């Protein structure tokens, strides 16, 4: 054909509708911020109940994870995420969604090789590189005598 691959690549860039960056950012900001605000409200509630700061923080994370798991099971979290994008992906609720959605999806392949093995297909890299980053950070801190 007459059109070269280079010319075609230029056309593809031009033709393809681009993601509405402004709207996407606003959604991500609103929903992401909203989830963080909910976390802060929860933390303040736990503190008001007389819990220590460490425990209140841990309980806040646990509550958000549980809430995300329930919403994922009910099929609601992905509806929010279809609009919110990074806003619902980055907070801890997004991590819970990644684990729970895979656990549900692959249960037809059995508890061990389905749910058990595939639960971390999406979340796995986050854990691997999160741990690696922690090791590097810890090493740097140790070298600096921290």
């Amino acid at each position, binding site marked *: *054909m*007459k*059109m070269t*691959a280079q010319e*075609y*690549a230029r*056309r*593809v860039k031009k*033709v*393809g*509708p*681009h*993601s509405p960056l402004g709207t*996407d950012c606003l959604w991500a900001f609103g929903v992401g911020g909203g989830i963080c605000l909910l976390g802060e409200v929860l933390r303040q509630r736990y503190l008001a109940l007389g819990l220590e700061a460490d425990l209140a923080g841990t309980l806040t994370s646990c509550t958000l994870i549980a809430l995300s798991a329930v919403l*994922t*099971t009910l*099929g609601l*979290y*992905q509806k*929010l*995420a*279809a*609009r*919110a*994008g990074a806003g*619902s*992906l980055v907070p801890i609720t*997004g991590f819970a*969604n*990644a684990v*729970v*959605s*895979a656990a*549900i*999806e*692959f249960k*037809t392949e059995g508890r061990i090789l389905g749910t058990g093995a595939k639960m971390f297909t*999406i979340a796995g890299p986050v854990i691997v590189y999160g741990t690696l980053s922690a090791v590097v950070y810890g090493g740097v801190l140790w070298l600096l005598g921290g």
Partner: protein
Amino acid sequence: MATRRGDTLIFSDPPVIASHAAVGGKKEGEGPLAAGFDELRADNSFGQSGWEAAEAELQLRAARLCLKKAQITEKEVSLVLAGDLQAQCTASNYAMRALGIPYAGLFGACSTMAEALGLGAALCSAGMADGLLAMSSSHFCAAERQFRTPLSYGAVRTPTAQWTATAAGACLLRPTGPGVGIRAVTFGRVQDYQIKDINNMGAAMAPAAAATLLHYLRDTHSEPQDFDAIYTGDLGHVGSQLFRELLAAEGLLLKNHVDCGCILYDAEAQSVKSGGSGAGCCAAVLCAHILPRLERGTQKRLLFLATGALMSQTTFLQKESIPAIAHLVELWAPKKEGTA
């Protein structure tokens, strides 16, 4: 018999599509072509416990409906040519386990229906099959979990992404008799224009569609305006525009182009982004929309050009570009009784 001109097989006595059936899921039932389907189910599980089994059931229903409409039994079918998107074509394999007809599995990704029609027409024309089923299917949920992410995983679909149809189409081919005629077939050559974006299949497949159409037009000395319509399979809105631009660069202005992926859904209202896709998309549009139009005589002569992206999850992760293919069949309205 058939004669060969370039890449194109031309049948002097065209084999016919004696009957056809289309089955779809919930979203297809909410789309503009719902009225043409033979069966639509609001429950995408089709009464099965897994999505893979649901797709096998979907294909089985299409096959049985097609045979019922032709008023024949499984025993009178000499061969089934079928395919789907699942690994090792399992939807077709498991559907065929229930039917017990001689079967040859095909894989041409979303081009499978045209591939099956082309091969089926050649076999019928050569007298090697009488009563041949050509069919293909796809299932949104089975495709998502195999190629993308779990269904309940939260992610934003890009504007160029397409929606895998939950649908199946089946056609019964005969060497002669009443029905839409398969006049010619062009089997495509693999094209690769270095597209690597798995969310822009339309862009990967458009060059394959253009290349096959150009081969066909050259082989048969035809012009695009000789046809009532040129239907492409599953390029979507983005791929369709690129397809027309590729042909414009060849000096061809396409005014009668329709894409199956663009008409199965209302892209805006049904949030399917660039349109429908999947091996069942163009198969169902063919059986629910295109063939009925030819039978009614609304259209007399058209081209059905189905495209397929031939990558796998593994090659995609290894950063390979996406090769694509397109197969073409030329369809004629049934001959009126009393005419030659």
